[in-house]
């Protein structure tokens, strides 16, 4: 079967023999391999849509992940009798439009800080202490066990919700909560030891 997606050339060679519609239909039936192949195959196309929408590279990757999660959440709404391309484009455009609207709202009332804004008259803002504290915290986070580190990075540093972090890691929300709790306790001990 030949690919019928909107940008067939963006698909890796490994899946060009199969249609996105077929892969999605199998994914809806719980076929893990087909579903993974589909997501891997559509990610570059979704990325190109995000770039065309004018997102920065960092925003772009966030948008791709958001669209993939949306596809996963509403995959039951896809009808395999219809082409997959328009469905994918519909989901992507909606999520990108939401993101651009949100960004426009933020920009309308916030000003991005530039390097000039970072030096102030007050002494404490120019002290090296904060930079040193940040460095110690980063190093302490890096020393955490892998599971706890991942939980802290997703929930505290990237500010994901428990639900999103659970989708990324495959862990339950309870497990993530426990991991963050233990990580914070451990960080407190590590930082107190450093100071002492």
């Amino acid at each position, binding site marked *: 079967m030949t690919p019928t997606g909107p940008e067939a050339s963006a698909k890796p060679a490994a899946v060009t023999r199969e249609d996105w519609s077929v892969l999605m239909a199998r*994914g809806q039936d719980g076929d893990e391999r087909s*579903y993974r192949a589909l997501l891997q195959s559509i990610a570059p196309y979704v990325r190109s849509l995000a770039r065309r929408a004018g997102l920065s590279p960092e925003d772009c990757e966030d948008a791709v992940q958001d669209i*993939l999660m949306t596809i996963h959440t*509403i995959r039951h*709404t896809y009808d395999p009798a219809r082409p997959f391309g328009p469905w994918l484009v*519909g989901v992507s455009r909606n*999520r990108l439009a939401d993101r651009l609207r949100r960004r426009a709202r933020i920009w309308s009332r916030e000003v991005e800080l530039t390097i000039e804004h970072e030096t102030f008259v007050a002494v404490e803002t120019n002290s090296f202490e904060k930079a040193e504290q940040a460095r110690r915290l980063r190093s302490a986070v890096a020393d955490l066990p892998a599971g706890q580190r991942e939980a802290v990075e997703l929930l505290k540093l990237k500010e994901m919700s428990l639900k999103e972090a659970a*989708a990324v890691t*495959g862990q339950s929300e309870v497990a993530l909560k426990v991991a963050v709790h233990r990580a914070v306790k451990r960080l407190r001990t590590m930082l107190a030891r450093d100071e002492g």
Partner: protein
Amino acid sequence: MADTDSLINALAGGVAPVRRLRPPMVRALAWIVLGIAVIVALTLWRGWRADIDLQVRDPAFWVQVLGAALTGMCATLAVFEISLPDRSRLWAALPVPALALWATGFAYGCLGHWIAIPAGAPIVLESTRCLTTIILATIPLGLALWLMLRRTRTLRPADSAWLGALAVAGFADTAHLLLHVVQASLLVLAINVIPVTLIVVAGGLGGGRRLKADFGR
């Protein structure tokens, strides 16, 4: 990029089978059948309007009934289509001609053909019964539609909410026109569309969180 790869692995790992949505036409038909059943049940319970013999001979009455019923049906089909991401937004225009017909009907009724209420008819009692009919038609139909749309987790919650309100209003007014002599089509529209409009506006101001929580992604 590495994050995206791990996300793909997380999403694909142990992906659960899902029950696909039925085609929008089938789902719309199911809801329309429910709407007709509600109208039939209310008619059996309340009986036809007192002046039905006069009304069936009046073209303006039929224009209004046809307009309300067609608006309800077209809006139903439109809401099930538009709630899916791959369907055109132009579906939202489907109920417009029927809505114009409905509006023509009740404008005509208001301006030039004021309904002949039989002499001595208990107007206050009729108004109360009329309001309860509207509410009894609106609640089950609105609830059923909300439950059906909720499963779609639509990416267009505002459009879906407006069209859904129009669908419910069309069916509720069809029931009202067949059962009651009091002219209340505008009230039926207001009961259904004003709360939805308020929610949509509030949703717009609050980032659409309420609507998304109700039946959106």
